[in-house]
C-alpha cells in the first residue's frame, strides 16, 4: 500500500511527517502546476469548484508515480467538499484508474466504526504509534506557521527580495527528500536560520494586508496565483487568516480535548452572521473584523468561483467595509489563469490603500 493525498498548501509537510513516523509508505504528489489543473479539469464536472479539479489532477500525478491509495477527509455538509470523495472516486474509475483505493475520513460522529476501520487500514492496526506521530505532526505544523510568519515579515523589508524567493523555493525542493518529523523540523529550522540572515531595511514601514476567504484557495499558493508572494514583493506585509495548524486545532485538537471549535470566530461574526451555514463563511467574517481591529490597511478575500458559503460572506463584507472603514478586494479564482489581470488588480488595490494612508497622515499633520 502506497498512500497519497491531495495538496493543500503546506499540509503535505505535516501529513508526510505523520505517515513517515508511523512507518507507512507514501508519495507526495508533484507540486501543482497548470498541467495538473488541466489534467483535473478535463475529467471534472464543468461547474464544480476549483479545489475539486486541482485535487483530481494531484491524484492522477501521484497514481502515475506509483500510489495506489488516496486519503482525504470528508464532512457531511452543507459545503460541497463533503461529496468530493465519492464523486472523485467515480471519476477516477471511469477514467480507467480502477485499482485505486479511497479512504475517506468522515467525522467519527457520522459512522464511528467506519472511522476506526479507516484509521486501522492506514496504520496497519496500530493505534499508539499514530497518536505519537500525530503529536509530532502537529508540532511540525507549528514550526511551519512560525516560518511563514517570518517570511511575511521579511519579504517586504528585504533589500534583495530574490534572496527570500531563493530560500523558500529551495525549501520546497528539499522537503520531499527528507523523512520523518525530526528531519523535517531540522530542515525548517535550517531554513529559518537562513531567512534570518537576510539583510533587512528595518526603517521601512510596509502596509499590512490580511488574506481571508475560502480555506483551500488561501492556503494553496498555486490556486490563488501566489498572492502572498506577489503582495510581499510589492512591499506589503501580508497575513493569512487560516493555516493548516488552525485547521488541525479546530477539527482535531479541540474536539478531542472536549473544547468547542472556532469559539472566537463565532463570537466575532455573530452580529453579522449568527448561524453556521457551512464552509468557512463565519470564519471569513470574523477574520475580517479581527484584522480591521488590529489596524490592517486592507483585506483580500479569495474564493473559488461558485463557492456557496463565500458568496454569502462576500455579500456581508461590504457592510464590514463600512462599519470598520477597511477596504476589501474580492478575488474569484477558477481554472482560467490569466495572471496579468490579477496582478493589475492587486497593484491597483495596493495603490488605493497606500493613498488612504497618505491621506490619514496628511490629516494628522
Amino acid at each position: 500500500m502506497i498512500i497519497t493525498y491531495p495538496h493543500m498548501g503546506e499540509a503535505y509537510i505535516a501529513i508526510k511527517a505523520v505517515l513517515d513516523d508511523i512507518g507507512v509508505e507514501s508519495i507526495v504528489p508533484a507540486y501543482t502546476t497548470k498541467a495538473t489543473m488541466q489534467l483535473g479539469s478535463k475529467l471534472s464536472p464543468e461547474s464544480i469548484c476549483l479545489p475539486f479539479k486541482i485535487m483530481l489532477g494531484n491524484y492522477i500525478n501521484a497514481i502515475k508515480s506509483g500510489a495506489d491509495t488516496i486519503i482525504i477527509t470528508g464532512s457531511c455538509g452543507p459545503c460541497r467538499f463533503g461529496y468530493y470523495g465519492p464523486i472523485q472516486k467515480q471519476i477516477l474509475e471511469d477514467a480507467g484508474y480502477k485499482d485505486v483505493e479511497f479512504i475517506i475520513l468522515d467525522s467519527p460522529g457520522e459512522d464511528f466504526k467506519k472511522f476506526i476501520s479507516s484509521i486501522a487500514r492506514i496504520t496497519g492496526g496500530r493505534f499508539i504509534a499514530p497518536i505519537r506521530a500525530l503529536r509530532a505532526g502537529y508540532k511540525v505544523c507549528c514550526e511551519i506557521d512560525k516560518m511563514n510568519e517570518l517570511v511575511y515579515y521579511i519579504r517586504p523589508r528585504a533589500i534583495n527580495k530574490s534572496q527570500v524567493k531563493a530560500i523558500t523555493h529551495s525549501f520546497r525542493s528539499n522537503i520531499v527528500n527528507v523523512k520523518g518529523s525530526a528531519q523535517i523540523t531540522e530542515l525548517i529550522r535550517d531554513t529559518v536560520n537562513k531567512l534570518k540572515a537576510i539583510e533587512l531595511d528595518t526603517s521601512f514601514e510596509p502596509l499590512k494586508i490580511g488574506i481571508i476567504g475560502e480555506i483551500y484557495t488561501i492556503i494553496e499558493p498555486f490556486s490563488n496565483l501566489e498572492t502572498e508572494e506577489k503582495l510581499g514583493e510589492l512591499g506589503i506585509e501580508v497575513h493569512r487568516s487560516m493555516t493548516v495548524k488552525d485547521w488541525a486545532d479546530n477539527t482535531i485538537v479541540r474536539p478531542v480535548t472536549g473544547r468547542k471549535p472556532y469559539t472566537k470566530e463565532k463570537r466575532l461574526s455573530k452580529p453579522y452572521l449568527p448561524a453556521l451555514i457551512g464552509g468557512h463563511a463565519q470564519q471569513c467574517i470574523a477574520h475580517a473584523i479581527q484584522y480591521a481591529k488590529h489596524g490592517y490597511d486592507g483585506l483580500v478575500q479569495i474564493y473559488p468561483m461558485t463557492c456557496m458559503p463565500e458568496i454569502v460572506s462576500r455579500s456581508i463584507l461590504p457592510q464590514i467595509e463600512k462599519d470598520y472603514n477597511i477596504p476589501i478586494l474580492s478575488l474569484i479564482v477558477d481554472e482560467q489563469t490569466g495572471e496579468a489581470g490579477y496582478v493589475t488588480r492587486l497593484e491597483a488595490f495596493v495603490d488605493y490603500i497606500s493613498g488612504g494612508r497618505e491621506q490619514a497622515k496628511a490629516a494628522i499633520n
Partner: protein
Amino acid sequence: MPVRVGIPRGMYFYKYYPFAKTFLEELGAEVVPSPETTKEILDSGVKFCIDDACLPVKVYHGHAYKLRDNTDFILVPRLTSVSQKEYICPKFGGLPEMVKYSVPDLPPLIDTEVNLHRSQKDLKKALFKLGSALKIKNPLRLNNAYNKALAEHHSFKSKVFEGNTPNQLINGAAAKNKIEGNHTIGVIGHPYLIYDSFVNMKLFKKLEDWGIRFVTPEMVDPHIINERCNELSKRMFWSSGKSLIGGALYMMDNSNIDGLLLMTAFGCGIDSLAVEYIESIARKTYSKPFIILSLDEHTGDAGYNTRLEAFKSLLDWRLTDDNNISSYGRSVHSY
C-alpha cells in the same frame, strides 16, 4: 390595521407558501406575496445582488426589493435545514444576510432560523420564535396556528402529488394536469426554477401546447426518493439534491416516462454534483431522451426554444421509428 407581512416569490416559495400563509394569517397578519417574476424584478435583483450568485438568489433579491413599499415586515426565513440530518444549501442559510446587506430601503426582516438538522420537533420552536417576532406569545394560539398550517401544507403537498403544479395551485387556476398527448416526460429541477414560469421561459406552457405531460420530483413519492438515494455510495446530505437524484433515478426506471428534462441554474453548487451524477447514470445505463437546460439571467429564448423543439423531435421519432430495427439489430434512435 393588521400587520402586513411580505413573502418574496422566490427560492422555496412554491414549496412552503401555503404553510407560511396559513400560519401568519392565523396570527392575524395580512400576507402580501410579491407578484410573479417579471423582467423588472429580475433586473432589480441582478442590480442589487452580488454578481456571482446563482439566478434564483438574484430573483429573490428582486422580489424582496419589490415588497419594500407596501409591507411592514418581510419574511426571509433562514432555512438551514428542513429535514433531519440534511441541509438545503449554504445560500439558504445565509439568505437573510444576503438580502439585508444588499437590498436598500427594506422594512425589517423576519429572519427566524428553521434548523431541523437535529430533530423535526425544532420546527415548532422556530415557529414560536417567528410568532414572538410579530409580538404574539400566546402558546395556545401559536399551537393552533401551527396545526392549521401543517394541515394546509399536507393538503397542498397531496394536491401537488396528484399532478397539479404548485404555481397553478398558488396562482389560482387549479386545473388538473390533464393534457391529451402521446408523451410523458420527467422535469427535474429545483422548485424555484421549474415552477417560476418567467425564469424557465414558460416551460410548462410550451409543454402543454405540444401535448406533453410532465412529472416533477414533487410528484414522486418521497419514500421512493429516499429509497433510490440509498444507492449512492455516500449519504446525500442535501434535501434538494436528494429529490433531484431520487426523482431522476425513479423516472429513468419508470417505463411510463419517455424522456427526462433537467433544469439547472448556472453556478448552482448542488447541481454541479447532482446533475453530473444523473447525467453520467443516464448516459451509461439508460437510453431515454435526455436534455440539460442551464438557465441564467439572460432572457432571450430563441436558443432555448430550439433545444426544446429538438428534444420534442427526439420524443416523436421514438413514437414512429421505435420498432424500426435496422439490419444490424439496433433501433435507429437507441443511441
